[in-house]
């Protein structure tokens, strides 16, 4: 249990998706002009991450891994290695999961759909989602770990995008050099935030 909590804290603060791995930067930069929309996108990303990482774990464990198909085909399948299909399978799962989530939310809660609607399709090509699944495979996590990892890296991403959106709302009133406006100053601020997040590295878990 304690390990799962540690993993959660680690992936929110120490190995933050944005500040340590630069994942999901595109939407992080594009949708961080207002706190409300940033919040909406962040929640949607967290939601999709929490579902897709464990689902991709199941896929990896029971279909793609070397010899994974032996539960289905018996001993002769021990040599089948479908790892080269990993990227395609994962992105297919993510794209269809996003589609599914979109339909469910539309049915269950039209209000939430109204506020998230436009962001949902964007999530399919958010590299934080595919990246988390890839890291999950690379670090050989278990099912429980991957669920915690998916959720907490989503929270980490949410934290980052809300923080930068709040700063950018304030930035409107400051006098930034013309060529530095927008992307340039956001990059430098993200760097400064990353420096602050680096201090979490001192926490030994």
């Amino acid at each position, binding site marked *: 249990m304690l390990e799962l909590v540690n993993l959660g804290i680690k992936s929110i603060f120490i190995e933050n998706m944005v*500040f*340590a*791995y*630069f*994942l*999901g*930067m*595109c939407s992080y*930069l*594009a949708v961080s002009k207002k706190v409300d929309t940033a919040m909406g996108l962040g929640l949607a990303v967290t939601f999709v991450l929490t579902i897709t990482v464990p689902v991709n774990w199941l896929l990896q464990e029971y279909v793609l891994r070397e010899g994974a198909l032996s539960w289905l085909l018996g001993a002769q399948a021990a040599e089948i290695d479908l790892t*080269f*299909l*990993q*990227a*395609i399978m994962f*992105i*297919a799962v993510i*794209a269809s999961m996003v589609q599914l989530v979109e339909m469910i939310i539309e049915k269950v809660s039209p209000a939430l759909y109204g506020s998230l609607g436009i962001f949902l*399709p964007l999530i*399919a*090509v*958010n*590299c934080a*989602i*595919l*990246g988390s699944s*890839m*890291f999950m495979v*690379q670090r050989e996590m278990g099912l429980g770990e991957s669920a915690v990892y998916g959720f907490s890296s989503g929270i980490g991403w949410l934290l980052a995008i809300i923080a930068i959106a709040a700063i950018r709302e304030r930035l409107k009133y400051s006098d930034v*050099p*013309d*060529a*530095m*406006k*927008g*992307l*340039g*100053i*956001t*990059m*430098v601020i*993200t*760097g*400064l935030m*990353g*420096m602050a997040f*680096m201090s979490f590295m001192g926490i030994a878990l």
Partner: protein
Amino acid sequence: MAETVETAEVKKAAEPLFSKRRKKIVTDPLNDDNPITIQVLGICSALAVTTQLEPTFVMAIAVTVVIVFSNLIISLMRNLIPGRIRIIVQLAVIATLVSLVDQVLKAYFFDVSKMLSVFVSLIITNCIVMGRLEAFAMGNKPYDSVLDGLGSGFGYAWIILAVAFFRELFGSGSIFGFKVFEAIGLPDFPLNGLMVSPVGAFMVLGLIIWVQRAYTGYVEK
């Protein structure tokens, strides 16, 4: 045989192979319409792989190859793809190409492939590729799309190579693994550890964007 030659000649007469417009397709993304600094696409991988020049170089080639070929394939299929499912079709094409590139890297450049780790697979979600498919390949002829892919690929390449150059030079004191400061007789040149960490990447890219936008005169609202 004779027929194909003839049609090729007719096309040439309509527009030369390297007409002004086509040159513009290639050169525009290099500066005035740069995918990273102006269109704000593909930042993730631009930052993650740039601690050293060697993996960055490989990454730049890989991304260019994927953009060019996915542009070509989607452009060839553009009249066959139903509008509603185009995103999935595009993702499938990109994912296939990326898997191919990944396998080639694993087979012939294993060390670099280890260094790039998950970031090769993440070319799939690199917004530049999707962006070019949506914005260009879906509505243009194959040859133009290939040129557009080349232009965007090179535009992406020079920015990430510039970032990697500064990060490797000031972070590890070398260029392509060659120890520069020792070679010019400054073995005690202080190296900046921040350059190797993510913070350095954000800072260097932010400053490069500043310089590049000041040069092209682009101002964001």
